[in-house]
């Protein structure tokens, strides 16, 4: 086992060396050093084991065991994915404002930015690093919020950044249509791995909606290791939807890290449907007064899927508000983990933090491990959390049955209603419709089976 992991790391190291030589951005000295240092850190950390508290309920051995071949963007290989095939991963609202990534690499020929206003920069991250206009700004922000010292997967991603997105929303710019970052894995070779990387900087008083989606073109096993960093300046507003619909054989490990400026607002909704094993670390830092965030999510898993959410909401300054609602529906032998930390630091008075995690178990073999945590070091605060694991309410079922609704249908209605609390808040119609359909399909499949 040990030798297995070592071998695996060597494989990543080899890919890393290859990458260092190939990409032009390595010419930028600081970027090369950053990657070197992240690789060193990854080598020190190794993949986490269940002995570590943060990974207690999620065993990443399948990821370390599989011989993944880093799907580094080979410049000359045009993937099978054509724009028609990709259409099913797009959203109509974002037809003229989407960046398409195949195996982590930005494909400008498949992307369209016609509908994006002038105050928005949306380009390849590595190209932006090499660009004098943005180089300094990126240097300031990249890998600052998502700390690679503590998390091996973040370190691995940082070491292997070879493409990705740099999004800059300039002062006062308001985006009407959502910006879609469409990550598609097209595993032409089995066991490929991709490293999506995104840096979003929302300048003062800007307003935008960003959709981040993950999907696979076929049911092969592949590994997505993503890191998204978000910086909100004074008064900026960002709505962020993450829709994870990877193939059922895929492995998805992602970190989202947001730094909230004064009076900014960050509204995030994470939907986890796909992947055999998915892990999402979301970290919201409120280091300035008056910030507000919503960190919501829904996970719907069945058969032998495993999904894990680790969230940290860090109240460092007074007068910040956070809301969190995570719901889960589990069927088959699936497992879900929710670990939500709320920190209220010394002096962060008048904090208002609310956290809820609710889980619905549809099968006898499903398992939930939930751990909502509060760490509070200020006295004039309002903090509450709640967690529940259970089934549909007997009374509600009974009520529907008295109205002549078939018991099975009544169950479906209530399950659908359970998910709707999260789905209903999504403001992009096509995402909501897509998720509604997906939830109904899952439920119907159950009814037929």
């Amino acid at each position, binding site marked *: 086992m040990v030798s297995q992991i070592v071998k695996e790391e060597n494989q990543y190291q080899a890919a890393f060396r290859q990458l260092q030589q190939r990409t032009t951005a390595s010419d930028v000295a600081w970027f090369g050093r950053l990657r070197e240092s992240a690789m060193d850190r990854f080598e020190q950390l190794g993949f986490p084991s269940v002995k570590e508290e943060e990974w207690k309920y999620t065993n990443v051995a399948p990821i370390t065991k599989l011989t993944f071949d880093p799907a580094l963007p080979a410049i000359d290989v045009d993937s099978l994915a054509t724009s028609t095939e990709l259409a099913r991963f797009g959203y109509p609202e974002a037809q003229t404002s989407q960046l398409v990534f195949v195996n982590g690499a930005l494909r400008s020929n498949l992307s369209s930015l016609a509908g994006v206003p002038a105050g928005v920069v949306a380009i390849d991250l590595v190209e932006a690093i090499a660009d004098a206009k943005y180089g300094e700004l990126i240097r300031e922000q990249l890998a600052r919020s998502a700390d690679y010292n503590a998390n091996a997967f973040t370190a691995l991603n940082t070491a292997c950044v070879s493409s990705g997105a740099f999004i800059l929303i300039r002062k006062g710019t308001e985006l009407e249509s959502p910006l879609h970052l469409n990550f598609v894995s097209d595993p032409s070779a089995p066991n490929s791995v991709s490293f999506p990387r995104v840096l979003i900087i929302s300048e003062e008083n800007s307003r935008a909606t960003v959709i981040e989606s993950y999907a696979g073109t076929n049911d092969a096993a592949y590994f997505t290791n993503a890191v998204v960093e978000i910086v909100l300046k004074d008064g900026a507003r960002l709505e962020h939807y993450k829709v994870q619909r990877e193939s059922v054989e895929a492995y998805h490990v992602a970190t989202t890290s947001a730094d909230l400026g004064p009076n900014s607002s960050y509204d995030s909704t994470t939907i986890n449907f796909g992947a055999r094993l998915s892990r999402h670390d979301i970290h919201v830092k409120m280091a300035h007064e008056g910030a507000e965030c919503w960190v919501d999510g829904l996970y719907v898993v069945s058969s032998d899927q495993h999904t894990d959410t680790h969230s940290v909401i860090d109240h460092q300054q007074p007068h910040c508000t956070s809301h969190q609602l995570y719901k889960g529906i589990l069927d088959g032998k699936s497992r879900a983990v929710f670990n939500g930390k709320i920190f209220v630091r010394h002096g962060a008075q008048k904090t208002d933090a609310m956290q809820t995690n609710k889980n619905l178990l549809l*099968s006898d073999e499903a398992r939930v491990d939930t751990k909502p945590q509060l*760490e509070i070091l200020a*006295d004039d605060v309002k903090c*509450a959390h709640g967690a529940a694991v259970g089934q549909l309410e007997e009374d509600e079922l009974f009520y529907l049955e008295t109205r002549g609704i078939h018991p099975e249908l009544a169950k479906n209605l209530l399950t659908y209603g359970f998910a709707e609390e999260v789905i209903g808040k999504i403001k992009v119609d096509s995402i909501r419709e897509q998720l509604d359909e997906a939830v109904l399909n899952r439920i119907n499949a159950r009814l037929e089976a």
Partner: protein
Amino acid sequence: MSTAENLVSQEYKYGFVTDIESDTIPRGLSEDTVRLIAAKKNEPEWMLEFRLKAYRHWLTMTEPKHWPNLTYPEINYQDMIYYSAPKQKALKASMDEVDPELLKTFEKLGIPLTEQKQLAGVAVDAVFDSVSVATTYKEKLKKHGVIFCSFSEAIREYPDLIRKYLGSVVPTNDNFFAALNSAVFSDGSFCFIPKGVRCPMELSTYFRINNSESGQFERTLIVAEEGSYVSYLEGCTAPKFDKNQLHAAVVELIALDDAQIKYSTVQNWYAGDEEGRGGIYNFVTKRGKCAGRNSKISWTQVETGSAITWKYPSCILLGDNSIGEFYSVALTNHAQQADTGTKMIHLGKNTRSTIISKGIAAGKSNNSYRGLVKVMPKAENSRNYTQCDSMLIGSNSGANTFPYIEVMNNSSAVEHEASTSKISEEQLFYLQQRGISQEDAVSLIINGFCKDVFLQLPMEFAVEAQRLLGMKLEGSVG
């Protein structure tokens, strides 16, 4: 709340030292120490084996320093006295033979050991440093078939029962402190309620540490046979010393079919001074096993003392329809630290558990709730309800909640709620404009906050607990 930070506790009332000659073994811990303790107590061979097994395992274990939310300097296990007994006549046939100095000490603590003076209806086992000095009402209890005596006596008189149940809930290798206790425990209480007997009086143990150099390691074992009932109380105090002392106890409860055990603790060990000098390290393993169908174990604790509390009274709900309960008030002030909570392990069908935890943190103290609710696949139709509320007094204190919830079947329901708040100014204002003094108002609000837990305590203890809480926070808030 402008003067909210003005926290001054009343002087610790039980901080006196009893001047008594004691039989003390040299410092340090080795296999010889373990053998010496066993020899001092004239223990049978099987008991020594139990101790040595625990000791050898303890050597391989590491202190749980990383996961609890506690910080303290390294404990030197070699710089401690593992056995210290007050010198007195060899065998005490009646109370008249107990050293008057000891009787005086307990009287001063409010625990008269002479039966005439006692609150009727409470039998007391008094433990002074390492040994039990007196047990009251033994004869009366015996008439009902109830065995209540010191652990040493139980090993001599009821070896079969001890061999059967000792270590059956907390095995010797359970955790670092339990292993240490199993190796060096010196005394404690044993109580056995036979089939169908409802124990006619409350049983209690009063723990007193007197020697500044010694740790206290005692064990309590309570066995409730089919259909029996017992209510058990535990109280503790210690003198004021600048040095920290270790108290590592183990409590095991076993409830067979239809039996009920109610275990209440008012813990008031010396908590150290305002700067955090001195005080007891209270590292205790308490666990109950609902072994039989329809059995019930209920833990109630009021934790106000100790420099550090590390304690998780737990229930293993093995029998179908069994019930586990945990009611806790933990108050920390000054530099105190508490990491306390419970574990409810649901194994049997239709098992139910309730957790109510109230944490109050004042001064620069740190108060954490840590709990586990685990519902195993076979524990169908199980229920858990957890509520943990924290109250912060002053901006330098900390309150944390670490609940672990693991559910492995779909017919069970688990709910967890937690909130953090402070004494609201509106509440204070309302009470004050009704003519209630600020201090009384604060005490009223805090007692209201803890009411759910105090209601579970036997009457005498509830009164004691309310008084204690008021005293601890006196002049503090407001």
